[in-house]
């Protein structure tokens, strides 16, 4: 009566919301109960089997079924992130790709005279010194000015060298002296020295400007390579100092390059081309760049309906040392892609009709957990220096340029400028060449980490090209064709065109089928769950409900039984000690709680079928009631011997 209010409330709560523990008093009872009542197959057989061997076999089978389920489900989980590939073909109107066309020669040689005369003189000098090649016999243009032979600082600093005696003695181009040489030797063609060939080797030496003992020697097996490489090095030095506007003027204009243009059965002209300045190829022109207008598309395949251009390749105005081949370079690319014409361009021959049939394929990979590719390049820690969408090529070039600016202090000529940097030239950065070559060496050997940072793009478009060549113009049509084209070229050009100055190019879709190769997730969550369900059902006829049961029985119930046992033991021990000490009576509340946890009390309000229906418990009737049918169908009944032998099965339900 004199209960504390707090205790009153707890008692009330207990009364209305009785928290009962598991019904089984011991763990083994619980297990037995579980096995008999669970929905999984197998467990029940363990309990109802008689004989040790049988029971053992059933335990083994059940355990192995559990093991199989775990193994198979693990496999399913591990294979979750796999992709299946689907190829779809769609016949449709296709957007025409951008076609970038460059002359192989970047700048008009006649216009470049002022800038290159010194370099050319030096080159010719080298040719004469080393190979006895004099200009009189050659076709080399005499237009190069006859300077008065002073020779700049620069060329003396990095002269061409001729090596004798296994690269130990060197003939200097300028002084003609022979001297011993120290330092590391880098061979562009490494097998030459090892083969023991005693032929003279040509190359050049790059030294660290700050520390002249640090030198790198570049040698080439052939003078052709050496001279071109050496020329290019100085050429880049010179070009880096010329502003972009001037360079654009020095190169070919659209009128110069494109003589006739025809697209999709209609005439087109230079307004359909966008100028794009490439550092190594001068002015290039992109057809259908999508800059000013919408992207053109073709709705008919075949050579008549593609792009048909005649290019004017002014062979007479070629730089003899920088480029040694004649023709044009083209690249077919997407409007958003940067044309890496120096890397993947297709060369076009002069005096020929090149017919390029395209076949369009679009691919798409799945990004993150499926494969290591990037959608937009935004997650790559390399700044995109090109004003175009991400590609692996762009990333690698940007990465190298970044490293170049960091370690050499200036930017390499062939790639775009990062913010705040400027192109290397000898006057401002005397050390850059040495630095560049060392850096490039490291880049190629993957020591800069660029190859690790840069990832593939997830989606890309590809135009597979089939290139074939026919003679053009044909022998009988040459005459009128050249006359009319000369007229086309306009009044300012007085000379008649030569057929080796012309290249005919046709770019067209072979068919309008677009192949789209895409990766799709092979598994979805739904399918994974279905597969789980299939596995669980196959081995044990189990479901999520069984899993919940297992959690309930094996974790919650077992734990509470163990805890209850412990608690009772502890209490017993405590009580024993108390009674030993002075026999202080237990508080009533404690007894009450004890009563609650007493399994005997709990049994009273068992939530069985009967209580659920609020039916009175069956009286001790001599005849058993019909048990719940599903689990009991196997049970034998009626024989007293059996019922005595299997008391558990009988008692399990009601208890």
């Amino acid at each position: 009566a004199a209960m504390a209010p707090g205790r009153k409330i707890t008692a009330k709560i207990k009364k209305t919301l009785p928290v009962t523990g598991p019904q089984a008093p011991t763990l083994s009872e619980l297990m037995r109960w579980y096995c008999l009542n669970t929905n999984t197959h197998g467990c029940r057989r363990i309990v109802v089997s008689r004989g040790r061997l049988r029971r053992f076999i059933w335990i083994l089978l059940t355990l192995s079924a559990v093991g199989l389920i775990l193994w198979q489900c693990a496999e399913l989980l591990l294979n979750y992130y796999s992709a299946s590939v689907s190829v779809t073909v769609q016949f449709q109107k296709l957007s025409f790709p951008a076609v970038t066309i460059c002359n192989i020669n970047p700048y008009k040689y006649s216009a470049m005279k002022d800038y290159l005369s010194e370099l050319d003189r030096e080159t010719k000098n080298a040719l004469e010194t080393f190979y006895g090649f004099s200009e009189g016999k050659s076709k080399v243009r005499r237009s190069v000015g006859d300077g008065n032979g002073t020779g700049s600082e620069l060329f003396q600093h990095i002269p061409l060298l001729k090596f004798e005696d296994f690269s130990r003695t060197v003939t200097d181009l300028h002084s003609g002296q022979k001297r011993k040489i120290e330092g590391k030797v880098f061979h562009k063609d490494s097998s030459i020295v090892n083969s023991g060939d005693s032929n003279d080797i040509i190359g050049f030496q790059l030294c660290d400007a700050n520390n002249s003992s640090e030198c790198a020697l570049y040698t080439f097996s052939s003078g052709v390579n050496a001279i071109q490489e050496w020329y290019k090095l100085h050429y880049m030095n010179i070009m880096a100092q010329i502003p972009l506007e001037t360079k654009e003027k020095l190169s070919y204009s659209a009128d110069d390059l494109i003589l006739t243009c025809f697209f999709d059965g209609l005439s087109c002209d230079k307004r359909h081309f966008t100028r794009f300045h490439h550092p190594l190829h001068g002015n290039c022109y992109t057809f259908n760049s999508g800059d000013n207008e919408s992207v053109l598309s073709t709705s008919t395949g075949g050579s008549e309906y593609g792009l048909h251009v005649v290019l004017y390749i002014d062979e007479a105005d070629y730089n003899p040392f920088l480029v040694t081949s004649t023709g044009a370079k083209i690249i077919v690319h997407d409007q958003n892609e940067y044309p890496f014409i120096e890397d993947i361009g297709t060369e076009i021959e002069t005096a020929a009709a090149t017919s390029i049939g395209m076949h369009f394929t679009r691919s798409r990979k799945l990004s993150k957990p499926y494969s290591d590719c990037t959608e937009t390049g935004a997650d790559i820690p390399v700044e995109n220096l090109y004003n175009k969408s991400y590609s692996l090529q762009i990333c690698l070039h940007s990465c190298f340029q970044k490293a170049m600016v960091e370690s050499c202090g200036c930017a390499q000529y062939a790639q775009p400028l990062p913010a705040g940097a400027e192109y290397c030239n000898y006057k401002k950065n005397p050390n850059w060449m040495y630095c560049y070559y060392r850096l490039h060496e490291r880049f190629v050997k993957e020591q800069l980490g660029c190859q690790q940072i840069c990832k593939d793009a997830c989606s890309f478009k590809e135009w597979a090209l089939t290139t074939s060549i026919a003679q053009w113009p044909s022998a009988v049509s040459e005459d009128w064709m050249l006359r009319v084209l000369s007229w086309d070229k306009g009044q300012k050009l007085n000379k008649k065109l030569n057929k080796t100055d012309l290249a005919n190019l046709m770019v067209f879709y072979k068919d309008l089928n677009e192949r789209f190769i895409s990766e799709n997730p092979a598994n979805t969550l739904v399918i994974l769950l279905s597969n789980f369900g299939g596995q669980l059902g196959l081995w044990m006829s189990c479901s999520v409900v069984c899993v919940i049961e297992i959690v309930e029985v094996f974790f919650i119930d077992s734990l509470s039984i163990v805890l209850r046992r412990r608690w009772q033991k502890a209490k017993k021990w405590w009580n024993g000690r108390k009674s030993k000490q002075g026999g202080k009576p237990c508080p009533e509340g404690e007894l009450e709680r004890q009563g609650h946890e007493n399994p005997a009390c709990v049994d009273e309000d068992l939530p069985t079928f009967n209580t659920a229906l609020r039916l009175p418990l069956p009286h001790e009737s001599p005849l058993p009631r019909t048990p719940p049918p599903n689990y009991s169908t196997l049970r034998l009944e009626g024989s007293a011997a059996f019922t005595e032998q299997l008391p558990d099965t009988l008692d399990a339900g009601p208890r």
Partner: protein
Amino acid sequence: MNVKKYFVRALHRLQKGPGYTYKELLVWYCDNTNTHGPKRIIKEGPKKKFVWFFLTLLFASLVFWQWGILINTYLSYNVTSSLSIGFKTMKFPAVTVCNANPFKYSEVKPLLKELDRLIEAALERILQPSQGGSVLPLPLNGSDNLSQALDLSLWNQLPLVLIDEHDKDHPVIVDIFETNQTGLGNQTAAPDASNTTSEEKKYKLAVKLCSHEGPGNCIYRNFTSAAQAVTEWYILQSTSILSKVPLQERIRMGYQAEDMILACLYGAEPCNYKNFTQIYHPDHGNCYIFNWGMDEEALNSSNPGAEFGLKLILDISQQDYIPYLSSAAGARLMLHQQRSFPFLKDQGIYAMAGTETSIGVLVDELERMGYPYSDCTMNGSDVPVKNLYSEYNTSYSIQACLRSCFQNRMAEICGCGHYMFPLPEGVNYCNNEDNPGWAYCYSSLRSSVGHRQFCIDSCKETCNDTQYKMTISMADWPSEASEDWIFHILSYERDMSTNVTLDRNGIIKLNIYFQEYNYRTISESAATTIVWLLSSLGGQFGFWMGGSVLCLIEFGEIIIDSLWITVINAISWGKGLKQRRARARYPDAPPTVSELAEAHANPGFQHEDSGAQPAAALPPEPGTPPPNYDSLRVRPAAPGPDGDES
């Protein structure tokens, strides 16, 4: 009376169902079903019961949701692709070889003589002012002798005009052979250069196309390049002339097989021009197809490499080209499937004279499943376009469909067929005499985007798409050292004379062979089959609830039962209503459901069941009887619920 008896019996039978009330039925179901959740609802204590009820509902809804997703996935008819690559013995592709030039100039010269003279004279006129300066010299001033000899009627049907663009805003049209200069009355088809500043050409060449309805209805199709204008004009004119020539004559004017195919070797076996099937191709004249498979079995190639492929030596005799018609010289060839028509303009490649061209072939196949997986056609029978190429006895292809579609439109709109495509029934080829406005009609149709889109929409691609991926390489041939004897032998073989009739400009060597891996096949298979669907559905149901189809049937049974209960209740309610009306008000309230259930569950009634057994004089059967609907219900011995109520 009989009917009433029957109803009573039926009612009695119905009453043998699993329960008399919904609750009883539900409890029975939960206890007996094989689905995992419901049993726990009734087996557990009140709180757990609630939890289990909630869980069961949740799982059931999860199952239905996921089933929805699965069925949706199935109905989207996805496909998976499998790729196989390797070498196998395959049919060697059909090889079509043509000359880039359709007819021998020596043969067609009489027909084209007038045209050539016209264009030569016109070119002379056009090229003249470039030296003279800005003023175009008026024609017919002292060159009457030239123009009198020309057949100006041919010219006037389809004239070339010069557009003088000295004054940007008012371009002047100058007809080349006439004196009248007119201002540009009608608009030009292509936009003019209007705001360019740099110095450029002052004259443009254009083709004047007039419809036959009247002289006012003309367009000027102008070209930035005179070379293109001349070629285009010449093609239009020569098409008109040649379309009047009968087919046999045209075949005779083309290149004959024995002249063109000089040597042939397939694998180790020699072959000759007789192994080629002649076909007349409007673009390229006589074409010859090797291994077309029309009459004979297609040849197989069982080895990779050039030694086991086709080797051909061709002569294209470049000196006999029509000068204005085709400016590129070479052989045109194409690899295609057996029994398909070669569309050389689309898929053909060139081979250059004076070279040896080696072509390594990889067969790239795509095998697709038809409807409903993808929108493709197996044989073209379901395409609404009449295939005009069926006269060649070739199979359907999208190119054939597009061309047929165009030709059908052309026949509809212009009233005649274009020379480049086969004719529909009852239509003739266009020519300038019979159809004066055909060039105008053709040009507008060709450049019309709407017509093209119409054809693209009505044609379907084939399900099996085969492409021949070619790796092309070239070398000079014959070498300078071997040139003499090769030319000598080949010339001798051709006409049995010692005159050398061949030169570098005409001779072509071709090697066509399978690469080391000669096929790459992408084949589709259905990603979701009905088996997949069933096993996924079963997996889902099993995963969440441990259920199967039988569980669904059980559930259905319960629903039927509950319907019966409703029927019974309705009947008894109706009965009760009648009786209540008849009688005075019954003093007691009707029994509640729980009371009824209690009454049924009275264990005392159980005796009847067991009591019946000894009466049957049979030994007690071991084991519970198979669970039937009555297993739970305790059958009342005394009057049933209906009787209670009454």
